[in-house]
């Protein structure tokens, strides 16, 4: 189908501001009388604050006041492991205890050094398995895990069970969570090749470029908070709650966000933004809280690490018959996540496994704040499963592309614990397209070719993430001048989806893009509630809402025209910013005329009545504030049923140097299977960005804490090993299948997350290929691991210890 906007590149409204430096991030604002806040953080991995003596600091010149957990939680903190605004029960080094406001940061830092806090030291643990072992220390107060709706609990295995798990054997202990489908025993019995082993994956920090700095002030009882977030309206609503102010008296300003990657999607992962708001309220001054890179590391979050056991069965024909997986996921000191279950879900969908059993338990360790990170679960497991698939292909004498094709998800397939149908799936097509563009057939002969100390390795990777939600709201307005205003509650995290999804509305009305205004970036611009910008859902979710709102607007426009010019709305069609009679193009009204007419009519046309009942309260507030300003299109998206998958496939060729453990990525191409492409440049960026993240995941990104004392090591970019330009290939090829999805009005699905998993999977496969099929069962696979393997040095790491960079 020929679209006017969908599938076409455009210049998003914010990009000029980005290249000129004009667009403002929270830290770029200033205001008369602004003072600076600094945090006093916990020096201990696990403790209880006994007393705080800030008298000396408060007496210092230039100090305006402090904020403590007691100010924020007068009734005390709940005992959930969720990150708090400020806490008296730190469970990680660097957790904010109090904030101090002073005339400048230097003064604030000096003043903080005079504060004395008395802590009660509590036991702490760095490796979840140490905590799991009988008698091991617990990361939380009163336990080592958190059971939903029940609170902190304790999970303990016998020391022998832990030792056996470390040794790579199947855990026997009862898991905290489990699901299963199919006849596992039968499936393994039917398997011609079975792989079994332990594995670990890294939990590492998001390290968004923009630290989570925030700036707040109060004016006429309203709180204005300049913050940083992936999402706009869901965070605005949630932050109002955390700050403790009615949503109508809270303005969240967030024109641009310096990266999110999962950890800024929801208010409870960025509660620190409430600090300047609360402090400003207390000392009655605008407060800027500049967050340092080190603080961004400790409270900014990290992915969950896995310590797992996996067993895979493949039939003679290569079908993945069975998957049995047991994962201990690292909940860190604060936060956590459901990554482990998603990992099993991912395999069951990517490879259409006939029988799957998942068992998992998440355990606390006093290592940073954990939470969702680009493909939480799906992307940890991708680099683990890929070499196993290749091993099966080798054992069963099947081509590595073929074994993936024959297991790949197609239309009509289902997946996951509830066997949810996929809205559509064209994975075999994606694999074929990738193979063509990469030249798999011609290249595969080069695999394992040696040239001196260098060896060629080829790899194919696949990534998946559930990529679409529904049930959200849409608000569009046709202004009296005939311009279209699309109100977007989508956050600006760099994907441009806040703008590209708005184009669905322009598409419906066939409006030229120059005549469309995307209204976003501030909660007081009257925006509709939407789902947080996580889970690669925005494209699917918000094209649905904007499309629907535009349809509502168009219907109203036709009603108005029909009422004025006679006939039924159905007698009219639209184009060139006019609505005209199908039979006689000359009979019609311009969009501007219709908008003005709608204003005269008011009522449902201008949002003063017949507002969809089931719209979110936040959206209703926005509509009520917009009521009577323009002809309005409103939409409450009905929930859709099935699972809209986001798929990508990556092909890569590397040259691994067995003497240095380093490898050069000679070529890499990623293909997206995400329905109709809405914004090609944006999609290409997601594929390239995902590639860089995948390189880091399978390569060397790390989250270092001293195992003995629990102090963080990889607080900066250097120590966390964030990939640099020269660690990436000279070119990253991109492509897409571009077949429409039936459950989205423009046929689109999301894709941001899987692009990373596919690349890391392709790389671990290529590394294993270059090393004659050796499987490391770990991500990352670091240079030292490769050197040790080649030199025959058995790993020095404590078995199954996560990403601690121990040789």
């Amino acid at each position, binding site marked *: 189908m020929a679209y006017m906007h969908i599938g076409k590149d455009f210049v998003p409204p914010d990009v000029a501001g980005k290249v000129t430096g004009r667009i403002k991030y929270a830290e770029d604002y200033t205001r008369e009388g602004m003072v600076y806040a*600094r*945090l*006093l*953080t916990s*020096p201990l991995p696990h403790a209880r604050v006994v007393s705080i003596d800030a008298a000396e600091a408060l007496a210092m010149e230039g100090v305006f006041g402090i904020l403590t957990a007691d100010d924020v939680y007068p009734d005390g903190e709940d005992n959930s492991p969720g990150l708090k605004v400020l806490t008296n029960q730190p469970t990680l*080094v*660097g957790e904010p*205890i109090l904030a101090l406001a002073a005339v*400048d*940061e*230097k003064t604030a*830092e*000096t003043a*903080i*050094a005079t*504060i004395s*806090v*008395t*802590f009660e030291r509590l036991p702490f643990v760095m490796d979840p398995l140490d905590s799991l072992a009988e008698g091991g220390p617990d990361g939380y107060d009163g336990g080592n895990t958190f059971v939903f709706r029940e609170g902190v609990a304790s999970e303990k295995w016998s020391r022998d069970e832990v030792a056996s798990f470390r040794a790579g054997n199947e855990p026997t202990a009862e898991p905290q969570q489990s699901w299963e489908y199919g006849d596992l025993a039968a499936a393994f019995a039917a398997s011609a090749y079975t792989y079994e082993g332990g594995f670990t994956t890294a939990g590492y920090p998001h390290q968004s470029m923009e630290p989570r700095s925030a700036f707040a002030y109060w004016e006429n009882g309203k709180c204005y908070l300049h913050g940083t977030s992936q999402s706009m309206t869901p965070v605005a609503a949630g932050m109002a709650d955390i700050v403790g102010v009615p949503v109508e008296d809270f303005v969240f300003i967030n024109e641009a966000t310096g990266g999110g990657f999962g950890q800024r999607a929801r208010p409870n992962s960025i509660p620190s933004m409430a600090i300047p708001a609360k402090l400003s309220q207390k000392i009655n001054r605008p407060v800027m809280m*500049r967050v*340092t*890179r*080190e*603080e961004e590391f400790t409270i900014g979050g990290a992915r969950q690490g896995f310590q797992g056991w996996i067993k895979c069965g493949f039939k003679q024909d290569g079908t993945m018959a069975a998957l049995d997986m047991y994962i201990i996921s690292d909940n860190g000191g604060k936060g956590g996540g459901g990554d482990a279950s998603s990992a099993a879900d991912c395999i069951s969908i990517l490879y259409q496994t006939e029988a799957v059993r998942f068992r998992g338990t998440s355990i606390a360790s006093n290592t940073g704040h954990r939470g969702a990170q680009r493909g939480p679960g799906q992307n940890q497991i991708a680099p683990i499963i890929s070499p196993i698939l290749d091993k099966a292909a080798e054992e069963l004498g099947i081509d590595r592309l073929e074994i993936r094709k024959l297991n790949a998800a197609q239309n009509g397939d289902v997946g996951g614990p509830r066997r949810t149908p996929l809205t559509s799936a064209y994975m075999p097509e994606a694999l074929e397209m990738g193979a063509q563009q990469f030249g798999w057939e011609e290249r595969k002969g080069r695999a394992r070719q040696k040239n001196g*100390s260098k060896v060629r390795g080829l790899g194919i990777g696949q990534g998946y993430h559930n990529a679409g939600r529904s049930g959200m709201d849409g608000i569009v307005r046709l202004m009296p001048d005939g311009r279209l205003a699309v109100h977007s509650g989508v956050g600006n995290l760099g994907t441009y989806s806040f703008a590209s999804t708005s184009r669905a509305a322009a598409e419906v009305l066939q409006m030229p893009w120059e005549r469309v205004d995307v209204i976003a970036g501030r909660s007081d611009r009257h925006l509709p509630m939407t789902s947080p910008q996580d889970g690669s859902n925005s494209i699917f979710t918000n094209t649905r809402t904007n499309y629907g709102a535009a349809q509502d607007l168009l219907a109203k426009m036709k009603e108005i025209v029909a009422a004025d010019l006679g006939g039924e709305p159905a007698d009219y069609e639209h184009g060139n910013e006019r609505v005209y009679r199908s039979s006689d193009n000359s009979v019609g009204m311009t969009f501007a005329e219709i908008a003005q007419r709608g204003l005269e009519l008011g009522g449902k046309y201008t949002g003063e009545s017949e507002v969809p009942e089931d719209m979110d309260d936040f959206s209703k507030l926005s509509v009520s504030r917009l009521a009577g300003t323009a002809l309005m299109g409103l939409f409450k998206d009905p929930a859709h049923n099935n699972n809209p998958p986001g798929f990508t496939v990556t092909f890569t060729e590397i040259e691994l140097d067995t*003497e*240095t*453990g380093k490898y050069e990525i000679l070529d890499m191409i990623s293909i997206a299977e995400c329905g109709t492409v809405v914004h090609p440049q944006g999609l290409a960026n997601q594929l390239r960005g995902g590639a860089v993240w995948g390189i880091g995941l399978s*390569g*060397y990104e790390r989250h*270092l804490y*001293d*195992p*003995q*004392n629990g*102090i963080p*090591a990889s607080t900066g*970019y*250097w*120590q966390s*090993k964030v*990939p*640099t*330009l*020269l*660690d990436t290939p000279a070119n990253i090829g991109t492509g897409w299948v571009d077949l429409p999805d039936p459950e989205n009005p423009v046929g689109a699905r999301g894709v941001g997350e899987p692009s990373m998993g596919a690349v890391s999977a392709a790389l671990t496969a290529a590394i294993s290929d270059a090393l004659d099929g050796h499987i490391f069962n770990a991500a990352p696979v*670091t*240079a*030292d*691991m490769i*050197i*040790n393997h080649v*030199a025959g*040095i058995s790993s*020095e*790491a404590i078995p199954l210890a996560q990403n*601690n*960079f*121990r*040789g």
Partner: protein
Amino acid sequence: MVATSHDVMPDIELYQPTDEANALALANTLGSAGWLLAGGQDTYGWLKDRNKTPSAMIELTQIDAWKGVKEIADGIEIGAVTTLTEIANNPLVQSRYGLLAKAASVVASPQIRNVGTLGGNLVQDARCWYYRRGLDCYRAGGNICYADSPEGLNREHALFGASRCVAVSPSDTAPALVALDATMVVSSEGGQRLIPAQDFFVGPARDIVNMTVLNEGEILTAVRIPSTWANAEFYFEKVADRNVWDFALVNVAAAIKVSGGSITDARIVCGAVECIPRRLEAVENAIRGQQRSEQLADQVAAIATDGARPLNYNHFKIPLMENLVKRAIRG
């Protein structure tokens, strides 16, 4: 007992002398309270974190006499505050001492090389993260090493010459200069001393809190590279986790003289395996007079790691070091 993440420069004086005498006088007067500031790439972090607290900075980069590359009677002299970029791109260095040009070109990142100086790269402090975090370890004047403990993270630490402290020499240019048999020109109000590059660095056994033999009031003002090794066959390689902004897991710098296929003389030095650049004299002796070949490289590589004493998690440095030495000998 509190912690805070520092991020701004504390109050501190700044002196910007424009002539040598003035700089040396300041260095002498201020002593340990005066921080010698060149490119500053190993300065601001210390000060922002308030982990080093001098009361004044003495900026050396305004002194033209200490900048640039010039020819001298025997070889070349490089001013200590010459930027790494300038050294990497200098025709004289490139044509005769490619080893140093290569080493300078792989330091950190382009922007750091644009302001970072040779002197700064040579005298930079240990990169052990425990020490950098401001912990009171041996190197900071304390009585313990956190890295070489039962569970300490010591993947990036020393194989050789550890004495309580297990930090390694982080520099890429240092091994190159030792291989080129350079001489350090050290000035103070008391006069000038010339120190062979090899003796310029000091390990923890002799001095656990300093990485060089520089005394208070002394300034490294220039580096002289003799013509002895000009246009020898050079090999430099740095292996690090990342290709930009990283310190070597191990690096190797070799200058080898070959005539008629046989090695007449050689100097081979490894970095990041000891607190000082490690000269591999045993290997040099083993290859002198031999035919330069793959076989020779394989035969002698193991000698390079004789006496290595790996910590819990840095065994990999042994094969890595041997491999790099092999590559240097193979050329």
